[in-house]
């Protein structure tokens, strides 16, 4: 196995782990705010790792750039949307979870 293939495999598996963590967070966390946290952080790192892994296998720099652009777009919208939803939930009067 080539070094690049090995690296890709490791990065993809790590990415998949973060996606799993995001889903577990979505299902298990107690309220909207904590779920947002699980979702946007874990999910974006997961996609980032996957994009990195796939970019190693890309046939050209342009493709790697496109992959990176897709990741940046998801980062941008996830971060903004997380903020917007949290703000709206706060205005709605949903109380943050306390133990």
């Amino acid at each position: 196995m080539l070094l690049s293939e090995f690296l890709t495999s490791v990065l993809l598996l790590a990415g998949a782990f973060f996606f799993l963590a995001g889903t577990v967070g979505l299902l298990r966390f107690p309220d909207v705010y904590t779920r947002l946290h699980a979702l946007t952080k874990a999910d974006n790192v997961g996609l980032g790792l996957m994009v990195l892994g796939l970019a190693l296998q890309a046939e050209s720099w342009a493709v790697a750039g496109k992959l990176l652009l897709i990741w940046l777009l998801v980062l941008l919208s996830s971060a903004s949307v997380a903020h917007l939803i949290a703000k709206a939930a706060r205005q709605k009067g949903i109380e943050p979870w306390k133990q």
Partner: protein
Amino acid sequence: MEAISLLPLMTLLQLVFDTLLGFALLWLAWRALASPELFQAIVLFIAFGLLMALAWVRLDAPDVALAEAAIGAGLTGALLLATLARLEVKNRAKSELEKKHEVRVITEKSKHQTFFFLLRMLLFMVVATGLVYAVLTLPENTSGLAMPVLENLESSGVSNPVTAVLLNYRGYDTLLELSVLLLALLGVWSFGGIPKPYRSFPGPVLNMLSRLLIPLLIMVAGYLLWVGAHAPGGAFQGGSVLGAAGVLLLLVGWRLGTRFVGLPLRITLVFGVGIFVSAGVVFILLGRQFLEYPPSFAGVLILLIEAAATLSIGITLAALFLGGRPEFRRHK
């Protein structure tokens, strides 16, 4: 050697993937229809759109996957959510008395429910039998129309077979699809004016997001239009991305200036259909058939028609999102 031993496992993985996707789609469709709560149904429908796009990817139909990604997963969700918002405002305005009255009417109707249930089941059985019959009587081992399409690709002016079919061989279908979109907008406009403007400042985050996303959306719409000539993409995909840019603008609180609301807006809306029809009519006058283009400049013509269609589709979708005639003022 390794590759040979892995082959059956690969097929198995694909089979598992496709089966899971298929069942998830069926389940989502059922839940989205059966869910009593509208908001939940909308979110399920958005998830359905995402998975449907994945299904088109698996069926190796990237053109449809692109359209489904833009319309099914992106725009329809926003449209449905805006509609839900209007419904809820209306429901709250209704007095309690009216609500009670409505409930009574519904209980009175319940005698007929069994009859309608049986009627529905009967209709369902008829349609299901017809579908099963159609699938079972499909001719086996035919290549379909793929070969004739590919053989005549050179004279169509483009190298993407899907665009060739949509804009050249079956131009009628595409023209009528554009008209249907316009008709839908006319239907929405006939309901009256736009709802009371939603006055609230977008805030710094949404402001920044829209400033970054909208230029990108417009650029990608252009890219999809251009790439449609030789790869998956085209007017509908580009138009829906352009429409998404319009929807985002409307959500941030931007409104079309009153100067442009009347005639200029209407001209832009019919621009796509107009160019399409006039291209057809010009070639009738030159002794050809309606929508039959000479191979020598079919490519340029298709690009021209698609560009006009992209613009019109985008503006129509954004106007649909607005939900009413923009120049029509409410009195209340």
